[in-house]
């Protein structure tokens, strides 16, 4: 496998992990909204908290994490951009 292909394999892997986490915070937990709401977080019912703040914060953290991971992958295979590109 060429360098480019290996890079793309890893990139795809990261994309799939990112979308799995996205699915959990965007959909999976809200399938069980009424069960979630029986517990609480910081005094808020949990399902309410997750859509008011929890999932949104999770998405922000997820995208920062994804960007850093992808930079590492690019570095590993020598595809980092030069500053003057």
């Amino acid at each position: 496998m060429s360098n480019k292909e290996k890079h793309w394999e890893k990139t795809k892997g990261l994309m799939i992990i990112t979308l799995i986490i996205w699915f959990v915070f965007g959909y999976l937990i809200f399938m069980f909204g009424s069960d979630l709401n029986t517990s609480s977080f910081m005094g808020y019912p949990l399902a309410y908290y997750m859509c008011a703040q929890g999932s949104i914060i999770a998405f922000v953290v997820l995208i920062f994490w994804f960007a850093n991971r992808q930079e590492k992958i690019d570095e590993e295979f020598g595809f980092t951009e030069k500053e003057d590109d």
Partner: protein
Amino acid sequence: MFKGNFIDNLPKIYGTYTGGFIVFIILMAIAEQAGMTAKTIGILFVAFTVCIYALIGYLSRTVQVDAYYVAGRQVPTVFNGMATAADWMSGASFVAMAGGIYFGGYTYMAFLVGWTGGYVLVSSLLAPYLRKFGCYTVPDFIGTRYGGNFARFCAVVVLTLASFTYVTAQINATGTIASRALSIPFELGVWVGLVSILLCSMLGGMRAVTWTQVAQYIVLIIAYLIPVFWISNKSGFGFFPHFMLGEEVARLGELESQFGLVKNAAADVKAAGVPGGLKSIAVSHAGVPEGGMAAWKFISLALCMMVGTASLPHILMRYFTTPSVKAARKSVAWSLFFIALLYTSAPMLATLSKISLIDPNLPTGIIGKPIAEIMQIEWVNAWINVKQAFIADFNGDGILQLNEWFMRGDVVVLATPEVAGLPYVISGLVAAGGMAAAMSTADGLILAIANALSHDIYYKIIDPKADVRKRLLVARALLIVIGAAGAYIASMRITSILGAVAWAFDFAMSGLFFPLILGVWWKRATRQGAIAGMIAGLASGTAYLIYVYPKFMGNAPWLGIDHLRFGIIGASVCLVVMVVVSLMTEEPDKATQQMVDEVRVPSGKTILGKQH
């Protein structure tokens, strides 16, 4: 004062600007104490901020193609994040979102999840690759990846339909705010709004829009957060509302069961003469509706908004302006961070507003008190007079019940500062914030349409030999034409029949989502497949909308997929048709496959030249 080039000085420039804006707020507060009228303060707030944006628009004028279309590709990560956040958060987010949560509770909050989660798709599937491609517009990518003018043309059609649906609502919002703040008729307010919007974009295209959007973000976030924190502290709900309103949310649940959540019969509401658009609270604030169908409706709405986000050209094109692919990725993260500052505050504002009004133990509470007494309150009178609030004593006991208090959703943002007894300067600030939110989104949308028409239709299809001067002239002329068309439609007050903002997301996802992502992620995707997918997706989505929308054919929704969610049908059809047709046609040639390989690595030259 500012040595060196403009980009290096950005933090200083916007720091000074923010400081200046805060000084302006303080001056207005002093003027209020000195006896300046509320009306004058409102006018000064809107006029002052709009003049600043116009000045930035003028200073950013340009005669270069890449500056006009992609801001010269030198917008730093964090600033592009702010600009995208302003581009994203519309007048509706600013003025109506808290109201939506106030009335819709948990069910409505599917929008919050949907309007933020889409950025995960943008960052992992699209933004870095489109940046590497080096296109000026979204159809530019479709046209080059799949080849041929017809594919490009189809993408322009989807883009125009989705963005135009959205832009009339934004111009409508600028008109409403301008007319209220400047005390002029709505029809005139719309045109004042349009002129303000064009001042920001005409001379400098994307470059001007970028730098005004950053300025508009700063105004709108200050205008949103100050009231939330101030109200929470003043009324003693907690120093940092986001972490401290748990008790209030629980108390709302108690009050809901005490007063009862009554859904008024439509006939009673009509008989009582409640003005159109006003609602009473009938849905639990934090309670989750039982059953699989309710969960599916929540999830399907979030899905449409997320996929729609990743297909809306005015958002995607913001990531064409970063200096590198790496910066494009990071910039998506910053965008969502800046958006989250407002989105996580909206539920808090809704909670504060609701508890202030419905808790009879609080001095601000009105529910459960004698109506005669409530009618003496100044703000109640003021909002009833302009038909934004209404009292209907259904049971005739002279006491205001929860289901007897009607108001418009916008009132939550616009009146809560007044209810909590904040000075008028805050209401002026909120008007300036709403104006900034609506203007910035309208600018992004009008520019997206005008750029697609001028670059993809005029330059790429009609006259590929046109020189730079002529191209930019056409681009600017189109900007005016599209803005005027939007304003004309808004001034006719028919936006309610043009449907919801959500439609823009559904149109975009029906026609563009799969052609965009498969263009990067599936080498086998062919021109015929993409064209068939775009046409079939848009056609089936639109047909389903007509089939299901109450004002058109009004048939029963299939599996709960109503007119807010028609993109699910459109995008599914688009995917199936695109895959089947691609597999039936010959695979793309070597050159195209190589191009896709190149797009997938960040280093190296962009596919399209710096100026094209």
